[in-house]
């Protein structure tokens, strides 16, 4: 078992490097002067060069190869001191170091991103956690009910309603909710309150989940062992809850894990539209103000969460079902 854990963990490392590489290339491949200009639109050439140097964009991109000390770097100068540094003295490895040491940098207002994140994580969770829990509970129960009582009016209408809900664009939900609750229902505040974002998060998410779980449950219910159990006299509910649900755990778990990153990254639109100062809102501001550092950090964060989640899922598969092996 320990061996499995270690192996699985080691397997994450090349993925992690890959994620870092791709994200890094995405953000750093442009001409550093162009990047500087986004931050200081009207600055003269000299100020741009200074910015490039202060933000380490003059370093070699991925590897510090011999010969780099003679090239004119993006800050307009050559840097002979590169010769004495290791091959890992580059933007890429520096960014890896930053990530590993949680040096997340500053946003456009010079505020440390780590501080902003600490402030904003709770508001995001206050939407995402209830939404997540409700989503899981509702999807599974409705899907189970629907699968069990299949072909009834309820099941057929659920099928249609879920497809419908999946086909509505998110902005439509937002505008509709604002209108409905603001003008007519007046039950909850349309701003600065978690009720509506949670409602919309659940509504827009359960459509797909119900359909998926229903298929999974149905598959299980067709299995031989179900027929066997029934003929042995095991009660319906026991079959349903213990066996069907139990065996469906793997796909259900995978799907649950895949939505984990959204817990933290929050939903951009939901938070921004309803005035919740969470991480999603921070992301939105970063987009509007072209704040690349924040977006970089959010991308890393999201990937990190996803990979941790996926690791945890694999490990729990193993615990749940020893037959599963690392392929």
């Amino acid at each position, binding site marked *: 078992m320990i061996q499995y854990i270690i192996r699985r963990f080691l397997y994450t490392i090349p993925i992690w490097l890959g994620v870092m590489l791709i994200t890094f290339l995405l953000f750093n491949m442009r001409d550093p002067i162009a990047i500087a*200009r986004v931050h200081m639109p009207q600055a003269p050439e000299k100020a741009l060069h200074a910015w490039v140097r202060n933000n380490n964009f003059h370093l070699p991109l991925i590897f510090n190869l011999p010969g780099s000390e003679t090239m004119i770097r993006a800050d307009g100068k050559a840097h002979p001191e590169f010769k004495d540094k290791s091959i890992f003295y580059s933007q890429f490895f520096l960014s890896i170091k930053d990530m590993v040491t949680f040096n997340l940098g500053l946003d456009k207002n010079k505020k440390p991103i780590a501080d902003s994140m600490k402030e904003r994580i709770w508001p995001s969770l206050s939407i995402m956690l209830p939404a997540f829990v409700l989503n899981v509970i509702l999807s599974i129960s409705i899907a189970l009910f629907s699968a069990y009582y299949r072909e009834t009016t309820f099941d057929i209408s659920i099928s249609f309603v879920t497809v419908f809900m999946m086909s509505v664009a998110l902005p439509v939900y937002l505008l509709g909710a*604002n209108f409905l609750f603001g003008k007519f229902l007046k039950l909850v505040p349309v701003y600065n309150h978690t009720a509506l974002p949670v409602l919309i998060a659940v509504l827009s998410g359960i459509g797909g989940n119900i359909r998926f779980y229903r298929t999974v449950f149905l598959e299980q219910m067709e299995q031989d062992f179900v027929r066997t159990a029934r003929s042995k006299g095991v009660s319906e509910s026991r079959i349903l809850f213990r066996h069907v649900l139990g065996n469906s755990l793997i796909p259900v778990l995978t799907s649950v894990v895949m939505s984990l990153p959204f817990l933290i990254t929050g939903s951009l639109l939901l938070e921004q539209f309803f005035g919740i100062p969470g991480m999603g809102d921070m992301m939105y501001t970063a987009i509007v103000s072209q704040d690349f550092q924040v977006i970089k950090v959010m991308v890393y964060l999201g990937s990190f969460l996803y990979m941790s989640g996926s690791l945890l899922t694999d490990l729990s598969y193993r615990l749940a079902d020893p037959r599963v092996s690392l392929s």
Partner: protein
Amino acid sequence: MRRIVALLILIFGIASCNNNPYGKFPEGKVIFTAMDGDPRTLDPSRVGDTASNSIASNIHDTPFEYEYLTRPLTLKPAMATSMPVYGTAEHKGKKYPSMKFSIKKGLRYMDDACFPDGKGREILIDDIIYSIKRASDLAIDPFGYPMLSEKVLGFDEYGAAIQKKREQTENKIDIKLLYTDNIEGVRKLDDYTLELLLLHEAPQVIYFFSLTVGSPAPKECVAFYNGKDGKPTYDRHPVASGPFYIKEWHPNYRMILSRNPNYRQDDFFPASGNKADEDEGLLLSKGKKLPIVDEVRMQIIQTSPPIWTLFEQGYLDRAGIPREVFQQVISGQDLSTEFKSRGIRLDKDIDISSYWWYFNLNDPLFASNVTLRQALSMVVDRKEMIDRFYNGRGIPAQSLIPPGIEGYFEDYKNPLAEQNLTEAKRLLTLAGYKDGIDPKTGKPLTIRMTLVESRGASSLYRFYIDQYSKVGIDLKIEQLDWPTVLEKKNKKEFQMIHGGWHADYPDPQNFLQLFYGPNVNGPYNENNYQNKTFDQLYNEMKDLPSGEKRKSIIRKMLEISGNDAHVVYLFHPVSYGLTHEWIYPLKPHPINTNQLKYRDLDQTLRLKKTEQWNSPPLYAWLIVAGTLFVLFILMAAAVIQYRRMGR
């Protein structure tokens, strides 16, 4: 299972107690407003756009300010002891016109961490002098530079010396060492008195000290808030002595201004006014000590539906569009009968502003083709644009000078500032572009207009394209974000671009300086307009006292500029805001944005009305209950159906 259901009901139950986004209204007088973005800077020396100034002017106190109710606009002393004394003074054997004033003793800054014991120290005349020095430092983009340049002795030279110091140290010089020298024409007579030596009679210098740029700045705090070690920059954290201070600022979320306990104690709401003001309800707060409200809470909301909904529910006291130099498409908020019956008012803000489009006079297409420019000026139907996109709230501009300032003539009509398609087509043919076709390509002439990309503006831009297609011209709109548009303007990389101006002080020179030839290197004269006669007349009129002579010179200048068609005049906006009846009326001020201290409200009325408007209607609960009921029925039916199907 049952427990989960109970929990769910509890969560939603608590959540639906009421729909007040603040939970409940706070005690005391608090005003709730919204703005659509953070101010760019609150550093008094740097505040340039009206949105930032509308906040900054309420935080920073100035030596002089406008009387609130008096019209025509009159300045009165605020931090100063009395109006300035003009005379002459001798310096190094020459006589100079002088301007002298003192500030009151005992005025204090707000308490802040940048002071040694956290307590705001007394304000001295050195702080005003420090602001003057900062205004000369071109590297920080000082807004007040042109107000003192070529007016105060030694000011420009001082500015040049600062630049040199910066260059020599590669801009790494410690700010504490930067402003150590003194300006020749700025004399400190004692700790509270200042004397300025002027190069010539310049009555406009007083305006510098009535705007945010002239407020005193504590140099130790400017140095303290340098953006390093996790401290914000002075842009984000100014230290001042105005009626309010920033209690909280979460960028992109909310800003709370709170009454400054250290604000001077001698500022009161006017004790009396004329009958007209009284009838309008402007004297309800007479005699009260300023600021009247305890707090102003500004939510930063970028999309319009929440702003509108919150206003309708009564949780925002005012829904208005902050005055901005750049165009914003205002979503029509017609005053419906429903609103009127709820007591909602339409408050007009007189805006001394003007909008136009620049032609880039360096561009070969426009450089010498006056006829083409004249033709292009007559294409857009300004009235239609105002009606459709601004609900009729604006006046088509005949020149760059808006009503409310000397130099605006009711009877002056610029023939080029109106839509006249026949004439435009005729001129186009004369200019060499018959039917709008470019003879070189055989296709419609393409003109590129650079505008700020804004989510709401695409339909307005569509309108422009439609208008120009009526004369056969293919208008292409290049939409860029604001900083890039600024950059293009600076580098003169545009064909046509948006321009506009909002008066800093009520003098036509503030507008006409924008077309003054030599100003081409500053933030003015953005399209390199050079007309020797215009420049000559400008120099004649700029320091003249107001009167008939000045007016006739200005009129001549307007005619010259109009004929040259170097810009396309658009309109003067009339901005407005919807206000709830519990907010006392405010007299609209054409220049000032520091009205917050005069604001007053009846908070019991607000409580009453919002409760009345926001109690959930009966049918709301019925709908929620009904939906759950229907769901339950369906599920029960499913069970029955299933059994019947005999599985």
